[in-house]
């Protein structure tokens, strides 16, 4: 009796992974599959799934054996604590690599778990600069980060839209991080930041800070936060009789923003999006293959999730092993042509070829600028 109990306990304590003898290699994907950005989480998962299926169809051999990749999807509900628990679960499931998570807020805490478990993680959409600055060798991303996005916004605002810029952020990790980078970008390009104002991600009234900004008479207002605040903010800008240009980051670069801003939006509104617009990515057929497979249109980040999964597989191929410790060096050096273009990582794990696209509101839609 006692012996069985100990045996059971011993089994439970086992955390060591067994050498990969089987031909099935598991790859994890984590993103919010529930909650208000569930559609984006599903989009990412589908992107990764398409990659896995296409590599399986082509047939990949590692270590002389034919390998079948299997995607395990998990839901982090865009919540850091859930993200950690799910990260642990997916590590328990014995994945050899992870595509995810979607939000910086969940990816950063979870990255610690993957790194200490020694499992490579590639986020297709977390843009916070900190993610790759933690000194974790197992953490990568395929998307340009906030520093790159902020400097594009800052440069565009200061050089094309006017010298004097007011910045508002929503005091979230995303909004504050991006706002700091925008400020740097504005100053580096000869503009001045007339003021930094703040709101929060549950606010609906911005009249006080907008009135304060109005008194300083800036040329541009930059808002770094989500569409749910940005849309109503644009409305109040009009109601207070402020006539400036308005720029928002990728959090506001959505159809939702246009809906919420109602008749207040005009061609004085701009936004940025990390990555290329769908019709400019390298693999022109991606959109149709995706639609054919999942019956849904690509939302935003699916191509980057595809490339993240592809990078994991290319790394395994190059190292001729699916053992994370063995293929990690190969993953760091991997370079191949993915659906978004060339894919390669710098020494921190950031993408080497990150692109940022600027959009302007025209005739009811965000339209990409050259």
């Amino acid at each position, binding site marked *: 009796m006692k012996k069985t109990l100990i045996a059971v306990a011993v089994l439970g304590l086992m955390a060591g992974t067994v050498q990969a003898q089987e031909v099935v290699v598991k790859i994890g994907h984590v993103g919010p599959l529930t*909650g*208000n950005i569930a559609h984006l989480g599903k989009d990412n998962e589908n992107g990764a799934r398409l990659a896995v299926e296409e590599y399986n169809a082509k047939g990949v051999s590692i270590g002389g054996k034919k390998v079948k990749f299997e995607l395990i999807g998990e839901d982090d509900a865009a919540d850091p604590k859930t993200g950690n628990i799910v990260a642990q679960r997916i590590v328990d499931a014995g994945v050899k690599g992870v595509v995810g998570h979607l939000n910086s807020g969940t990816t950063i805490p979870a990255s610690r778990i993957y790194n200490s478990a020694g499992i490579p993680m590639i986020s297709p959409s977390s843009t916070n600069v900190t993610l790759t600055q933690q000194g974790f060798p197992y953490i990568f991303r395929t998307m340009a980060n906030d520093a790159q996005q902020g400097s594009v916004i800052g440069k565009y605002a200061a050089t094309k839209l006017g010298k004097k810029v007011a910045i508002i952020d929503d*005091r979230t990790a995303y909004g504050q991080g991006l706002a700091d980078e925008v400020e740097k970008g504005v100053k580096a390009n000869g503009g*001045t930041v007339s*003021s*930094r*104002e*703040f*709101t*929060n991600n*549950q*606010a*609906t*009234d911005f*009249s*006080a*800070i907008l*009135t*304060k900004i*109005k*008194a300083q008479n800036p040329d541009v207002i930059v808002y770094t936060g989500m*569409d*749910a605040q940005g*849309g*109503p903010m644009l*409305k*109040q800008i*009009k*109601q*207070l*009789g402020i006539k400036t240009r308005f720029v928002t980051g990728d959090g506001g670069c959505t159809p*939702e923003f246009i*809906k*919420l801003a*109602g008749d207040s939006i005009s061609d004085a509104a701009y936004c940025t999006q990390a990555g290329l617009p769908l019709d400019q990515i390298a693999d022109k057929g991606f959109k149709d293959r995706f639609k054919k497979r999942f019956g849904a249109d690509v939302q935003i980040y699916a191509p980057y999730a595809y490339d993240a999964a592809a990078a994991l597989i290319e790394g395994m191929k190059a190292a001729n092993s699916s053992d994370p410790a063995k293929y990690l060096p190969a993953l760091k050096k991997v370079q191949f042509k993915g659906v978004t273009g060339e894919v390669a990582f710098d020494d921190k794990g950031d993408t080497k070829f990150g692109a940022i696209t600027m959009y302007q509101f025209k005739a009811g839609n965000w339209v990409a600028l050259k």
Partner: protein
Amino acid sequence: METLLQQIVNGLVVGSVYALVALGYTMVYGILGLINFAHGDVLMVGALVALQVIVFVQKTWPALGTIPTLLIGLSAAMIVCMALGYIIERTAYRRLRNAPRLAPLITAIGVSFLLQTLAMIIWGRNYHSFPQLISTAPLQPVDGVFITPVQIIILISSALLMVALILLVNKTRLGRAMRATAENHRVASLMGVDTNKIIAITFIIGSGLAAIAGVMFSSNYGVAHYAMGFTPGIKAFTAAVLGGIGNLGGAMVGGIVLGLVESIGAGYLGSATDLCHLPLWAQSASLQATCANGGSFELLSSNYQDIFAFVILGIVLIFRPTGLLGERVSDRA
């Protein structure tokens, strides 16, 4: 000068909404000694029901004018919220009148969560854009100061509602019964007051006010979503305590004061704590570099907008533990 005037207008508009919600809190508290945590969520239900009905009416009878459409939406919201208020009182609070003090507070929080969750299931998690049936095109009564027709309506109607409520409580038979119930349930019922009915009516009136506040809120900002009641709920509760909870006039004063403090605070705290405004001789060398060319070094700024409410509340309560217009009630709880 225009900026200050504009900030006062902003503060009055925000404050009126707080005041309207605070009235509901304070009525229930005055009679039951209960914090109706779910009050803010009743506001949310009001806004979303109105949204649903307005969209429906616009589709079915597009010829109907904007004002009748809005009124239909508003009435529907009020009816639903009043019914909701009655149901909440009946099921979640009535049985707990003599329970330990914290029990009704926990059910109130539970009801608040429940309403949010149900709203999330019905209306989803997205922000909905609320049709703006009253013009939001800004007017300029004074040069450089902007106000929209919706905001004017908010100011006027919350003042009117407030007066009507005070008259109701002080001049009518129903009002007298309410005051008697607030004073002492048992004695009131001995005097022939149906206290259960009076308490139910109080909840119904409070919820009706919340519905109006919800529709105003959404008409002004053009958005509605399932968690929109939380922040105004907390702020309005603060306003009610600030004015002296249980006191109708106090709720109004508390709401307006809070609105003004928030907007003027957010507008001026930054420059008030800007170290660059220190006389030159007091500035260190590193500060002077920051301050050059109109730079600033603001210790506090609009990022602290949300704590003004609590700081003011703390200060007022330390010196007047029963709120600005409060009566004797320090031992009420």
